[in-house]
């Protein structure tokens, strides 16, 4: 989370709405790399992923004044845009490659020093994800980090459609329980 000396995400957005480019730069420092990492999981291409991250932050810059905190946090807003733009780009180029989930999963947790304040939360989220049952984790990641529908996931995993939905739902519930009330 943000230390007291740093402006909150909402304050950054308010400053952006006033035309403060420094606030945009700070928002990029806070989220740019992670949004690109998220887009990279969909696209498997770092340059494309960085373009998506730039698009997301540019949209935030242009729409900062209309951000409605009642609908959710800034992070949630940025992630929603990033995921949507990544999927648009993925569909546009009709990529057929599989998501890079297994590879990312095989890696150890990142060096905590690299992510400063966010590292703690990142570790907690990872622990929460690791705490899911394996079958829940796989289905949730396939559902979230790919363009596959539930029916397509069911086909790939050779399991009934209802089971896929139940596992995604229960994984989200478990995660929410594990992370409850931590975000801004």
């Amino acid at each position, binding site marked *: 989370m943000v230390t007291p000396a740093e402006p909150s995400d909402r304050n950054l957005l308010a400053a952006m709405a006033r035309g403060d480019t420094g606030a945009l730069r700070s928002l990029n420092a806070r989220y740019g790399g992670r949004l690109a990492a998220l887009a990279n999981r969909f696209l498997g291409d770092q340059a494309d992923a960085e373009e998506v991250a730039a698009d997301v932050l540019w949209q935030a810059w242009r729409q900062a004044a209309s951000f409605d905190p009642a609908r959710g946090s800034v992070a949630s807003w940025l992630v929603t845009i990033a995921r949507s733009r990544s999927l648009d780009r993925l569909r546009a180029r009709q990529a057929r490659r599989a998501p890079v989930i297994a590879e990312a999963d095989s890696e150890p947790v990142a060096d905590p020093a690299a992510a400063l304040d966010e590292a703690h939360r*990142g570790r907690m989220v990872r622990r929460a994800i690791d705490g899911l049952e394996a079958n829940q984790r796989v289905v949730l990641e396939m559902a979230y980090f790919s363009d596959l529908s539930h029916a397509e996931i069911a086909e790939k995993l050779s399991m009934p459609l209802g089971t896929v939905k139940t596992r995604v739902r229960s994984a989200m519930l478990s995660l929410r329980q594990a992370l409850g009330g931590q975000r801004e």
Partner: protein
Amino acid sequence: MDHQALKDLLPLAAIGKLDPDEERALTEHLRSRCDACEGELRGFRETAAALALAGDDIGRDSEARIWNRLRARLDASTSENESAPIARRDRPAAPRPHSRRWQIATGVSTAAALAAAIYAGVIMRSNALQHDQLASLADRVSASRAELAAARNETAALRQVLVERAHLERTLMAPDLQITRLQPLDLAPSASAMVAVSRSAHSAILQANAMPTTPAGKTYELWWITKETGPVAAGLFEAGAGREVIARAEPPPAGHVILAAVTLEPAGGVSKPTGAMYLKGEPAP
């Protein structure tokens, strides 16, 4: 659909995975101002955001490149704003039909006044159209500038690839060329790679295909493993999914090389291998 069934849809809605029928039903329900479901959906969206952002950061380089793209757009946007008032200044003021001079003119000829009014209307519409066209052109210029900045980055990357390819060709043409083929291991089952070495030119170059994308904070590292010294670092490279990699490497050290290998290591590389092995191969005798 009863309330519990609708509530069950909320986790799936938060990750955008509802069927069209389910989405319609839930949207209708939320429109009826169910605060409980609205709140739960918000909570699940935060959970999804946490899941999305839990991955490793691509790194400071990525942040800098994203900022460069944003700065290019800001610059383009600034020049667009600077040019807009000029366009507006150029727009002629609309005629004032009730001025004294206009009333005198009406005394001379009503028909002429009518013609003038129609002409003025045409001019106004024409100016409005021109203004819209200018705004549209400014948008296109802004988008083109951003594309140009991206294209420049891409050109620089391609130029680097060409330089490396030329180096590869020089190495491949060397009379003492030796090729070591690296075979894929479990972590990169469809990958392939070779290392071309010319000891006389003191050069080596690695070419790899179908390596998994380098994870954030990591790098692939090539090793020569000799009987005498064990593993010796020979170079770092990164891979994007599906892309060919051509990277310069250090030629093998003196001694009997028994193996070449590629491992995944922390960004910046390490002096001795610590990570998982992705490729390995024995040099030709």
